[in-house]
């Protein structure tokens, strides 16, 4: 005798409510996380994202204060507004995390990414690649008779656009740093 009249396939068959209560639009946010540069701190931040099912679109990390041993982690993430709030609160309670800033909501910010492109080819393709690189204000940081390595700095969209242009011209390999971001204006974090 089953005391429950529950339709098959309903989430009542689970010990959990399987329906997603977060029917909200997904947003993209850039977070600046200032952390004590101690062993394992990056693993803590990344582990938080993977463990709680959050997304990482881009991640950049380096020590920015050598005396104070502070690193800045710039992480681009996507989620509904409530998930973004959760991410910030969860980051904030990691012990070696000193500050969490949402550059997307705390006023205007600049975002830049650096990328290196290896493009190989001969003749007209090579000339065209160089011409486009000039338009994108890319620097040539290595050159052989059959290849270039270009350095491009800009928004992620600009780097995507440059990659699209280089592909038919002999794009062999690319490396991207992920986003570094700062708020605009005089005041710092």
């Amino acid at each position: 005798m089953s005391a429950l009249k529950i339709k098959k396939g309903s989430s009542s068959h689970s010990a959990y409510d399987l329906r997603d209560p977060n029917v909200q639009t997904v947003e993209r946010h850039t977070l600046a996380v200032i952390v004590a540069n101690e062993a394992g701190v990056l693993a803590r931040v990344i582990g938080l994202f993977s463990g709680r099912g959050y997304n990482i679109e881009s991640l950049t990390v380096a020590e920015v204060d050598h005396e104070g041993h502070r690193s800045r982690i710039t992480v681009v993430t996507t989620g509904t507004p409530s998930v973004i709030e959760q991410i910030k609160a969860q980051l904030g309670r990691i012990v070696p995390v000193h500050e969490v800033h949402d550059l997307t909501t705390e006023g205007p910010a600049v975002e830049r990414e650096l990328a290196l492109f290896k493009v190989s080819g001969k003749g007209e393709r090579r000339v065209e690649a160089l011409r486009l690189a000039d338009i994108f204000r890319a620097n040539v940081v290595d050159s052989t008779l059959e290849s270039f390595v270009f350095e491009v700095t800009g928004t992620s969209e600009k780097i995507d656009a440059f990659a699209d242009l280089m592909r038919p011209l002999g794009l062999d390999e690319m490396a991207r740093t992920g986003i570094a971001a700062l708020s605009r204006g005089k005041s710092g974090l």
Partner: protein
Amino acid sequence: MSKKQMTGARMVVEALKDQGVEVVFGYPGGAVLPIYDEIFQQNRIRHVLVRHEQGAVHAAEGYARSTGKPGVVLVTSGPGATNAVTGLTDALLDSIPIVVLTGQVPTFMIGTDGFQEADTVGITRPCTKHNWLVKETDRLAPVLHEAFHVAVSGRPGPVLVDIPKDVQFATGTYVSPKDTKTSHYAPRTKGDADMVRALVEAIEGAKRPVFYTGGGVINSGPKASRLLRELVDTTGFPITSTLMGLGAYPASGKGWLGMLGMHGLYEANLAMHDCDLMINVGARFDDRITGRIQDFSPNSVKAHIDIDPSSINKVIHVEMPIIGDVASVLEDVLAVWKERGSRVNGKALKDWWKQIAEWKAIDCLKFRQEGKTIKPQHAVQRLEALTKDHPDRYICTEVGQHQMWAAQYMDFDEPNRWMTSGGLGTMGYGFPASIGVQMAHPDALVINVAGEASWLMNMQEMGTAIQYRLPVKQFILNNERLGMVRQWQELLHGERYSHSWSEALPDFVKLAEAFGAKGIRIDDPADLDEGIREMLAYDGPVIVDCLVEKHENCFPMIPSGKPHNEMILGENADTRNAIKEGGAVLV
């Protein structure tokens, strides 16, 4: 400035003494031998040798929950550390302050897959509040002091310090806690004044209010419980609590509705569903509490007092978030209340209590004890009746039906008297926890209400109980089933009882005797009281094997994915016209 030169191993003992630690639960092994050598040469700190590292962590949890002080664990590297993982996760989910010290292979061997090497900080990173690998002896003392600070500050939780063997052997400088640089980690404890005022105004205007309290009140300390009682009694509001918060407000108090949640009381859950003001004090809207999110208390304004900002709006959106320590915030609320000369809406409150009285009349915990088989509820009820007047009683539980029955049928008038694994639901928790409680309170009555399946998961700790003469009472409700699993299979999986019965169970009486303890079997309702009295009278550890009805279900129950007002009641509840057909149905 007290700066002394000593070995790392000595520093560990020194730091524990300076932190006021009296008891350490542990198990030795190769990578912690230098520390064990230091423990051997002193008398200040008592070491309790458990029989499995998981038991050590649960014992430390029991110690911590019953005293409010951090529990301390010392285990070796590799398997010693990995066996501690379940306990760490348990403590993390229930916010219990414990400090676990693990040995590690020497620093120069880390990464070589050395004997008994495991990446302990890597493995335990997600199941601790914070952890450290100490690679220099000079760093050891500051890290140990910081570990205690992090464990007890803000929302409490487990921390782990991994200490390589060469760091234990090497000599360095010891610094005392007061000479250690204070950590930047200092969570906010004072609530926002405007929000506190808003809450007081909401209390003044509320027509159908309810206090919903949790383990945060107990973690905040005895003062928080005192202030909670004052606020509840001043307002005359009803109050319910999560499993974790039982005892913060006395079960004998006027405002008490009983526990809420999946197996909570009918009146508590309906009050949550129908209220117009919900005041969450140190609880976290766990899924066993909320049921279906969309239908959770649809018409209420909600306030949430919590020390952890990440608890706010995690599951349920609240209008009045107050981030702060429960005691500090309640103190402010009461101060504003008095300053404003506040009054509640007495007339509306009277109607609300009338409504609650109607729900109470359903008597959702009613059951029938008849025939020669002991109903598990009856067994717990008799245990309660025969022990409630004991001046110093502590109750632990394992996890499952018996746990819910204990929560439903036992009353707690003080905080820190109830030790149960709430968030993680760890079978095998209760027995070692009872050992930890008894270590902290040698003269108290410590009872572990257990199921036979859970109890067997850490039965080896019987050796610990005997060795340290800990008179813990193991009250096993033996239904030869994994009762809660069986219940779900009956109700939701077409009565296909897949692997939910216990075959080849030991003879618990003989088992007790094999360890040198006392065993009592009770299988007749007529012998129940006598059996319990015999258990209480015996000066030493006892296993009671109480054979109970094998197919009893635990009601009331909110099936997962259902709202609070769609509870299932047991067939004996006085449902009058609320239920259309016989037996247990949705109401």
